[in-house]
């Protein structure tokens, strides 16, 4: 119980300082529109084959928005040596990590949910035909991406490890999750349920989430204390 409350406190703090005003939501919305507009220049959005790459486009938007948010996550703690204050408080490292991951997860999900309908209008796609499955995939992938991103953020913030070129390792690490998501989303946007042969992608996604969450929770304590 206390553990959960601590997780929630950390997440709440991050969310509060980010969502203090509703500008952040406005900013997220116009950010999503901006990226979608940018895409329209890169590919020919009226062509038919856009359907085939819609999942890919969508997840690129999410990956990009995510990179900006994740990059900020632990950097925020550096300012007034706040990380020290957190680490010296009695909260376990894993609770701290989960709290920050949860905060990032909520932010990312907001951006994603906002961009989905806008994507639908601007690219003339009916994305809602397999709504629940799509949401499941979305949340699963977002969690995986967040866990990796938050861990990366914690690693780079620590002076000792900064030189290890971790970002170079960790962005590519997100690829399995993003790849499965792209594949599945394209199928779902086309309106079909997921065919039997493609269920392996869902399993990949779930496995990815479990493994990396376990790894991160187990290792974060070592990372945080210098």
């Amino acid at each position, binding site marked *: 119980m206390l553990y959960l409350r601590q997780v929630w406190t950390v997440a709440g703090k991050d969310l*509060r*300082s980010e969502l203090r005003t509703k500008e952040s939501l406005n900013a997220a919305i116009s950010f999503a529109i901006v990226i979608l507009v940018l895409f329209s220049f890169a590919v020919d959005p009226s062509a038919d084959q856009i359907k085939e790459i819609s999942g890919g486009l969508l997840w690129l938007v999410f990956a990009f928005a995510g990179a900006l948010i994740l990059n900020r996550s632990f950097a925020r703690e550096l300012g007034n040596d706040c990380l020290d204050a957190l680490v010296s408080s009695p909260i376990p490292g894993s609770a701290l990590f989960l709290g920050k991951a949860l905060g990032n997860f909520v932010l990312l999900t907001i951006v994603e949910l906002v961009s989905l309908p806008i994507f639908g209008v601007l690219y003339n796609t009916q994305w809602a035909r397999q709504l629940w499955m799509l949401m499941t995939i979305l949340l699963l992938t977002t969690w995986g991406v967040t866990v990796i991103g938050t861990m990366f953020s914690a690693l780079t913030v620590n002076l000792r490890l900064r030189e290890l070129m971790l970002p170079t390792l960790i962005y590519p690490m997100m690829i399995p999750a993003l790849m499965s998501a792209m594949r599945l989303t394209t199928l779902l946007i086309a309106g079909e349920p997921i065919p039997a042969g493609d269920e392996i992608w869902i399993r990949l996604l779930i496995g990815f989430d479990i493994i990396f969450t376990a790894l991160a929770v187990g290792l974060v304590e070592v990372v945080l204390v210098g």
Partner: protein
Amino acid sequence: MSAVAVEGIWKYYGDYPALRNIEFSVREGQCLALLGRNGAGKTTLLRIMAGLLRPQRGEIRILDKDSRHPQTRASIGVIGHGIGVYDELSALENLLLFGRLYGLNDPHAAAMEWLRRTSLDNVAGSLVREFSRGMRQRLAVARAFLHNPSLLLLDEPFTSLDDRAIALLQSLMQSALERGATVIMSTHQLREAMQLATYVALLVRGKLIFHGERPAEMLQDPTWLYRTYGES
């Protein structure tokens, strides 16, 4: 029982030994001033005690437990060089946050109480970003005292406080000592420290040169210790 027992600690940064074989202990209820010139290793030692750094060799016991033990951490209050509060949150929100993390029963009451005691109650709702330097330091003090810690580790706590705030902090430390807490502080404002410190420890280039009761000479002439034991 000793509040802090430091046993043969070595700490290297790269191959520079910032602490060399430090060994001493502080009994409960003592007030120790950790002295030393710039770069002597005071901050490093305090960070090790607070469990923020691990020494390469040697061991440290806080209240007879490991320094990273959750119970230990719950009973330590730390002020570091950074103030450790968030610029984007208000003073009250900051204290509430830490109150919850320390598992206080009524974080709100405790937060309001400490804002009042550091006379920040009339700016409780303002963002820390808008505070002057001294107001920030006061908030750092409030954060460190919030959970009634039984060991206080204060790194230059008097920095940028005005005369009134220094008197206030001294009285807070005094009342903490009276209820049996232990205080270890590093500082360069010797005059202010000597009013409280009953013990002193002197670091010179990472070595512990002196540790013991405050020499009587220091009350009149605060730098006496430096001149007697330090270099020049």
